[in-house]
Structures are given as structure tokens and as C-alpha cells.
């Protein structure tokens, strides 16, 4: 019986669904709280009960990333791998990898000071979208419509002066229908996709902000671009965010490492937690 372990720091509906499905499938399943787990450089695999495979599901990106590093140090198979988590957790790295692997993606500008960020905006013209390179749920994603907005946002960043605030990530505002697509990729398959529409009429479509899930057909074009995006970041269990550009067709703007799926699970034809557990078990080392 494969031993499946789910590492969490806060139990959301997704973690409950994964635990329940894994138990239902007859696997020896345990939940492991990252917040009360200790690892040291002398630790050995047998000191813990990390089972045959771990699904790392921390809501805190840095906690999950560093926990994954510890698991890999102990030679425990973990989804997703450290490299993949690192590639997806940082939007700048994701954008660079997507482009490098010829995945259609919005044109994105990087600069490392407020002055050069403003230079880009003045040269390229408004609007551009500014995003924090680390973060989720649409937080800090702002459409810079004019110079006044840009000045305000940049000034706030200078005042808060977090280490990541010095990295300016500016992305073209894609002309698209008022929705985007979230697809879940498990291994080499797109198992489900949905349209996410804005709940407020604004440009953000995140389900976390109340965006409504509507099932999206997995066309060959969607499948191809999602698989390519998944491979670009290293593969695993991923949430690929896609926009429908009026001119270029589909473009990938983000790949998510600890994919949330409670919205999509309501409308998906395939059983998302089952697909995830089956895939994890296929990678288990016993």
C-alpha cells in the first residue's frame, strides 16, 4: 500500500479533498503540519514518516519551498520538485522560462530601480500591468493606466522597501475577453480547465477574488500550450493561467505551483484530487 503524505500549513478544502481521495483509494495517508516539523543536517529519511511520496501543499510559498528543499535532502519524492516550485513561485523566472521555451507569453519588462521602471512606462506607453514577482491571488497586480497611478504605486513600493519591491515586473495589458483560462496540468495531461471571469467588472479574474468558474473545453491548442508551459517550468502538478489575446491567440501568463482547485472541482468532468493522487503514487519510490 503506497504511503502518501500531504504537507500543509493551513488546511483548505483542497487538502481535505486530497486526503479524502487518497484514503478512498486505499493509500496509507497522513497529513503533516510543516509548522511543527523539524529537520536538521544530520536528519535521515528514517527519522520521519514522510512515506513514499509527498504532496507539498503549504499556502505559504516560502515555507513550502524550503520544506521541499529539506524533503529532497532526505531523498523523499515530492510534488512539486524544488526547482519547479522555485520556477513558478517567482513570476520573473516563470516569464523568462516560458519565453526561452517558445511558449507564447505576454511581453514583459524587468527593471531594477524606480527610475528605469518609469522609463519603460514612458517609452512603451500606458497601460502596463505591474505585478509583485512573488505573490498570488491577484494581490498587488495593478493596471497602470497613467503616469499619476504609476508614480503613486512606485512611491508606495519605495516606502515599503521590501527586498522584492526593487524588482519591477511590468507586463503588457493583453486585449482579451473579460476572462482568462485556468488549466490544471498533471504530468503530461491537461485534466481540467475553466474560464474565470471578473467578479467586479475589473481586470482581475482570480477565483480567490470571487471570479466565477465556468467549464472550458480543452481544445488541442489549449492542451498544447499548457503542456509546453508545464514542461518549461519542469513539470508536475501545475495550474497554468492562459489569456485569449485578440491578435496572437492563447498566451500563458502564469504557472502556479500549489494549485488551488476548489472552484474548478465544482465543474470539472474528471476528478481532480484523484488525478493528482494517482500521479503522485505513480512517482512514489518504495
Amino acid at each position, binding site marked *: 500500500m503506497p504511503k502518501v503524505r500531504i504537507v500543509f500549513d493551513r*488546511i483548505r478544502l483542497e487538502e481535505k479533498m486530497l*486526503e479524502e481521495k487518497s484514503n478512498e483509494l486505499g493509500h496509507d495517508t497522513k497529513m503533516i503540519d510543516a509548522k511543527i516539523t523539524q529537520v536538521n543536517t544530520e536528519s535521515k529519511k528514517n527519522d520521519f514518516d514522510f512515506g513514499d511520496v509527498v504532496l507539498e501543499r503549504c499556502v505559504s510559498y516560502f515555507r513550502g519551498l524550503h520544506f521541499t528543499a529539506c524533503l529532497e535532502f532526505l531523498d523523499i519524492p515530492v510534488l512539486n520538485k524544488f526547482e519547479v516550485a522555485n520556477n513558478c513561485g517567482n513570476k520573473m523566472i516563470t516569464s523568462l522560462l516560458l519565453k526561452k521555451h517558445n511558449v507564447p507569453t505576454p511581453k514583459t519588462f524587468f527593471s531594477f530601480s524606480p527610475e528605469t521602471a518609469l522609463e519603460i512606462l514612458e517609452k512603451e506607453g500606458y497601460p502596463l500591468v505591474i505585478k509583485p514577482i512573488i505573490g498570488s491571488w491577484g494581490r498587488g497586480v495593478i493596471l497602470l493606466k497613467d503616469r499619476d497611478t504609476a508614480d503613486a504605486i512606485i512611491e508606495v513600493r519605495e516606502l515599503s522597501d521590501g527586498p522584492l519591491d526593487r524588482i519591477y515586473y511590468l507586463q503588457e495589458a493583453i486585449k482579451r475577453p473579460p476572462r482568462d483560462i485556468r488549466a490544471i496540468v498533471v504530468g503530461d495531461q491537461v485534466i481540467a480547465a475553466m474560464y474565470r471571469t471578473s467578479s467586479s467588472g475589473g481586470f482581475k479574474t482570480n477565483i480567490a477574488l470571487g471570479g466565477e468558474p465556468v467549464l472550458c473545453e480543452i481544445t488541442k491548442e489549449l492542451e498544447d500550450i499548457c503542456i509546453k508551459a508545464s514542461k518549461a517550468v519542469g513539470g508536475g502538478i501545475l495550474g497554468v493561467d492562459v489569456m485569449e489575446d485578440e491578435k496572437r491567440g492563447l498566451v500563458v501568463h502564469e504557472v*502556479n505551483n500549489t494549485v488551488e482547485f476548489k472552484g474548478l472541482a465544482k465543474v470539472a468532468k474528471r476528478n481532480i484530487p484523484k488525478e493528482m493522487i494517482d500521479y503522485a503514487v505513480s512517482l512514489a519510490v518504495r
Partner: protein
Amino acid sequence: MNCPECDGNMKIPDDASVGEIVSCPDCGADFEIASKNGGVCELKHAEKVGEDWGE
């Protein structure tokens, strides 16, 4: 059980698991279930949403 913050009455569902968040209906404080022993739960203050939280 009683809310550690305001002493209000909190009803924790029987199927709630360790790591789950429960809120006090009176004061709105959020708590994480730290441990569960039969029907007795130990609560700790839930972490606030961090800058790096999400997917």
C-alpha cells in the same frame, strides 16, 4: 468550547481536522486547531495572510 479571545461559545464540528481554521462567531477571531483529543480541541491563533500566500 469557549473562545480563548472573548470567552464566547464556539461550536467546533466533529469532523474538523487538525490544521483547520475555526472562527469565533462572537468576536470573529480566527483560530487553528492545534490538536484534537476526542472531542477536546486545543486552539492557537491562526496565522495572518502572508505576502507569500497563495498558489
